[in-house]
């Protein structure tokens, strides 16, 4: 299958990015190096092309009822401009995808993982009821994320929109570098940041990308790739679909109880999830912190008293903590901070500390 390219592909090539296949796209993994890009986002700001993400519009008079039935969070609480993190589950409470729900005034926009666009659409079409119209706007929509403590001041140079007082998980329309777009106070890094949605048109995308880099030059803004995006989200304990959550995991065991609103009325998966909640989940997604040169990786066994109790779902080197960190599901009785567990790294059982998430303290909402 041919890989898709985003409208910023040539900018990435020109910047010397290492491009890799990801979810059917040829995406920048890194420009100067993951460590440098990661630290740049934590201390200054980074610019990400995340145009691979999917955007599905839900229109029609029954759009809200449809979203309420398909997602775990309570979308009735949204007002125009507000954004909500949510999940879509199957009848067994397994996660089909995690997503953002935008209230766009006249309709809703669901932002989904690139690798799940087709599956989501197929699932959603099977659940259609009443006056609901689904539009796959993924190919027509580009997405740039500006993340980091300097992101707000950088954006302020380029727009008259009130980015200064835009609260976390809110969005407004505005013009940035001549492009009319949706400015969203969201991100996947744990830093103050913005995500900019706009029509996938090469020329305006390039103008926007380069204007942002210019405006952010003095503040230290640099392009950052998927490598840094992954280490940044892992430090925050954010779940990655396909690693930490999938159709075999439910939101309660994944630590996503806060987006599972069982009181809002029935939704797909709610019966199973209510039963899970009543008896308590059997396992829990925990954070693991290791010492020395021990770096946990996806797929490594987690053990306790010589017995395998789980598997690392995401792992790697934390540039901020300068040690190995990971996440994985382990039985609830053992999932307590301070209980001794180990990660089997190439045959050696290495001590791992169970820690509460996030690994790194950050305040993206400030």
């Amino acid at each position: 299958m041919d890989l898709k390219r985003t409208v910023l592909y040539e900018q990435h090539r020109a910047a010397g990015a290492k491009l890799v296949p990801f979810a059917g796209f040829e995406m920048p993994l890194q420009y100067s190096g993951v460590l440098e890009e990661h630290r740049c986002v934590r201390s200054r700001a980074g610019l990400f092309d995340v145009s691979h993400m999917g955007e599905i519009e839900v229109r029609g008079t029954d759009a809200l009822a449809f979203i309420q039935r398909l997602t775990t969070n309570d979308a009735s609480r949204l007002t125009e401009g507000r954004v909500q993190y949510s999940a879509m589950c199957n009848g067994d409470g397994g996660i089909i995808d995690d997503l953002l729900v935008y209230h766009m005034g006249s309709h809703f926009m669901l932002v989904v993982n690139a690798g799940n666009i087709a599956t989501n659409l197929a699932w959603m079409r099977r659940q259609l009821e009443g006056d609901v119209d689904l539009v796959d706007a993924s190919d027509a929509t580009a997405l740039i994320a500006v993340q980091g403590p300097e992101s707000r001041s950088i954006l302020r140079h380029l727009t008259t929109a009130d980015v200064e007082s835009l609260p976390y998980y809110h969005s407004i329309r505005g013009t940035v570098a001549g492009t009319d777009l949706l400015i969203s106070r969201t991100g996947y890094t744990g830093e103050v940041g913005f995500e900019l949605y706009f029509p996938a048109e090469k020329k305006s995308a390039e103008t926007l990308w380069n204007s942002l880099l210019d405006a952010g030059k003095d503040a230290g803004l640099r392009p950052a790739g998927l490598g840094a995006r992954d280490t940044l989200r892992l430090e925050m304990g954010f779940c990655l679909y396909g690693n930490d959550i999938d159709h075999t995991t439910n939101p309660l065991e994944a630590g996503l109880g806060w987006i599972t609103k069982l009181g809002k009325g029935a939704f797909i998966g709610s019966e199973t999830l209510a039963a899970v909640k009543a008896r308590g989940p059997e396992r829990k997604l925990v954070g693991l912190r290791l010492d020395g040169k021990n770096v946990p990786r996806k797929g490594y066994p987690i053990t306790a008293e010589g017995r395998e109790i789980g598997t690392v779902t995401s792992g790697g080197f934390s540039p901020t903590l300068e040690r190995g960190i990971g996440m994985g599901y382990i039985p609830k009785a053992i999932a307590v901070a301070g209980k001794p567990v180990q990660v089997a790294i190439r045959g050696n059982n290495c001590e791992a500390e169970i820690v509460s998430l996030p690994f790194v303290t950050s305040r993206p909402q400030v």
Partner: protein
Amino acid sequence: MNVPENLRYTKDHEWILIDGKTGTIGITDYAQEELGDIVFVELPGQGTKITAGETFGTIEAVKAVSDLVAPVSGTVESVNTDLEGTPELVNQDPYGKGWMLKVTLSGQPDQASLLDQGAYRKHVGK
């Protein structure tokens, strides 16, 4: 991509400089580029015997881990202890300050399994 003429290479991307009975071992420029930021290098101690074709250590990069495979058999004479605190030397100078081991060769190295500059370039397709 830098592939010095005076070195020999393995298909697993290690290099060796053979000088009499001593071999100096590291990983290639291509390997460090592919691995990305290297954060830990796990090497055997002085006196350890290593065997051609077998794992002698590991390299942890931010995004992946990789085995180090011995290009020759021999005994570890010295280890680059600078990599303990500054593993990024492997990224910055893979054929110089990023060297890993010096070994005393046991017998003649199997030249057939080692690639020269041209063969290594061909192997990595560059």
